[in-house]
């Protein structure tokens, strides 16, 4: 048992993650061609607009269900909404926010763009603490909008008229997943601007603007889009129930800052917070790179259902430093 634990702690998490991401990318983008369908309530971006998908993002169904009139939420329809939410929750707690770090195809594309940038010798970009703090609010605003806008389709707010059905899935319309994922099966149809109604035109225009922003932003800044992702905000509501946890022992932390520098999301608290034991923050994607670069025995660790699965060790740190340089 001790040997297995030591082997795990010495493992190269970056390489492991690369292959897991590739596997999930193939599964979620092409799984449908192999008759695989994991479900439509996934806590990750398998896109419903992509025909070959092996599972799809819960946000699509969630927005759809939010358009239900309130009076019907207490009928059979309400049970459907509840089942959808519970299914999402069931999927989510298994991997917690690691759904973002290991399975999200949109996240994987961003990581590939980072690899490309690095190979081209272009420097990474970082946000200042103040900008980071301001930008991270955007995902909560988007989460609120993707709930409120569909609600205004089935319900009247303050006596105002209801929105038309073109507002149905507002986040999907601006999500780069809708425009980018179908490209992997050779379908460029989602790149078009839809002029059939003003609402569609505005949403598809915003969608294409975001697509352009996504590609350049993700090329210049690691996991650029994840800071704005409402799925990440949605995850954070439930993260305390996650079976996979990132735990920090503040008494062992020397504040060396390695974890912060390795963090693709640029979360400062991972280095500065010495009080919290559960160190999963709202922007964390649980890639576990922070554990890999931590030189203090037992300072950071990942546990699943209470059992430690990966732990920071000085031995593991020096072995990995010998294997490859830490990217700055």
């Amino acid at each position: 048992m001790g040997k297995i634990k030591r082997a795990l702690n010495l493992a190269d998490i970056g390489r492991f993650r690369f292959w897991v991401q590739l596997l999930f990318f193939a599964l979620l983008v092409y799984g449908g061609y192999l008759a695989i369908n994991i479900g439509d309530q996934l806590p990750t971006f398998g896109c419903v607009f992509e025909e070959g998908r092996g599972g799809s993002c819960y946000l699509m169904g969630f927005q759809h269900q939010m358009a239900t009139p309130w009076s019907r939420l207490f009928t059979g329809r309400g049970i459907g909404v509840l089942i959808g939410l519970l299914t999402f929750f069931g999927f989510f707690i298994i991997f917690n926010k690691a759904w973002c770090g290991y399975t999200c195809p949109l996240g994987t594309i961003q990581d590939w763009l980072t690899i490309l940038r690095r190979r081209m010798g272009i420097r990474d970009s970082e946000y200042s603490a103040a900008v980071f703090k301001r930008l991270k609010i955007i995902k909560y605003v988007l989460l609120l909008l993707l709930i409120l806008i569909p609600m205004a389709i089935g319900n009247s707010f303050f006596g105002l008229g209801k929105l038309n059905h073109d507002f149905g899935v507002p986040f999907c319309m601006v999500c780069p997943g809708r425009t980018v994922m179908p490209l992997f099966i050779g379908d460029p149809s989602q790149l078009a601007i839809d002029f059939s109604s003003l609402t569609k035109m505005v949403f598809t225009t915003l969608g294409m603007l975001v697509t352009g922003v996504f590609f350049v932003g993700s090329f210049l800044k690691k996991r650029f889009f994840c800071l704005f992702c409402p799925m990440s905000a949605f995850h954070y509501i439930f993260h305390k129930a996650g079976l996979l946890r990132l735990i920090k022992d503040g008494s062992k932390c020397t504040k060396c800052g390695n974890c912060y520098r390795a963090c693709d999301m640029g979360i400062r608290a991972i280095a500065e917070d010495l009080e919290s034991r559960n160190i999963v923050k709202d922007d964390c994607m649980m890639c576990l790179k922070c554990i890999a670069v931590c030189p203090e025995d037992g300072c950071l660790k990942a546990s699943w259902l209470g059992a430690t699965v990966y732990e920071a060790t000085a031995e593991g740190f020096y072995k990995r430093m010998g294997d490859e340089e830490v990217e700055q």
Partner: protein
Amino acid sequence: MFTISRIPPKALILLALLGILTAGADASGGDIIPSTEPLWLSLSPAESTRPEAKTGKRPGSTEHSAEGEECSSCPPAERRPQSRFESEHRPAPLRRYFLNGLAPEAEGYVLHPDLTVDELKLERQGGGSASVELEMSDGPHHGAHNLYVVDREVRGETLHLRTAKWVTIQHSCGWGHAPKFNDERQVSQTLTSVPLEIVMDDLWDTNFHSTVMSGDRINLRVLKYGEPAPGARVTVISEKGWLKTFITDDEGRVAFQLVRDYYPDAWSNFHRGERGEIKFGADLISDEQGEFAGQKYDDIHLSTTFSWRYYPARREYTSLVIGLLIAVIGAGLTGVGFIVYRRRRWTGLKRLAWNG
């Protein structure tokens, strides 16, 4: 649907020959069967009860209130206009269709997606109606169901074998999409016991949504008892009365491009979900003698009908070039934004990392 004045005289003659104009005509007068009128299945008992005729609403605009799921914002069921089109993705357990008249000898079948066949309940009130009961569940009933009504009668010295076909989709996204991977449910199925059948491919996508659009290449097959029927006359008529007649090739096939016939007055009146109805009729004379119900005949006239819906083509209201242009603008602005941001943060010092 269309007015006689819009149809060219040549087309009127063909229509009259095929009886398409009288298809679905008011059947309240009883079982009067014109000699060569084809048999039609439709959602409403008569043309005059169509929603646009009664309410002035555009066709297809009542999709949400069509049979199927209840709609809180819709008028009570008895006051809702009957749509010409079935609601997709709103499974209804009991479905009812109307016929424009039935001969005394008639029977109906339903070919289910799992290829089992059931008998269709036929009623002879007014022009006649057919109903089918489907299970509201996932599994074998999830997919396209083919309905057939076949009647037989000798008139003069000809045996008329008339077939009306209808395809109805039973699907709910809530049931999941596993059947999309079942090839048998993605292609049109046929019933070999039917005298004459029109088979049209690519009617629905993998999620059982109708996919036929203006400008599409339509491929039809005409089958006589499941075998290709060469030399059959196929007549196609679109929503606005575009009419074309074809003769099937040696493999019983006909191919043509569906015209665009949706021209709203102004762009603000354009509706991408506007559905048009395309009607197909096929007939064939077979030089076979025999006897039916004690009456001798010298030849057999086989006829069949089928209808489906189509939407405006996506390219009528979407632009890929403008989309890409906007993405390039977004990318450019982001690039400039990053350069400016980096310059503002530049302190002139290089970060040093200890590598001890």
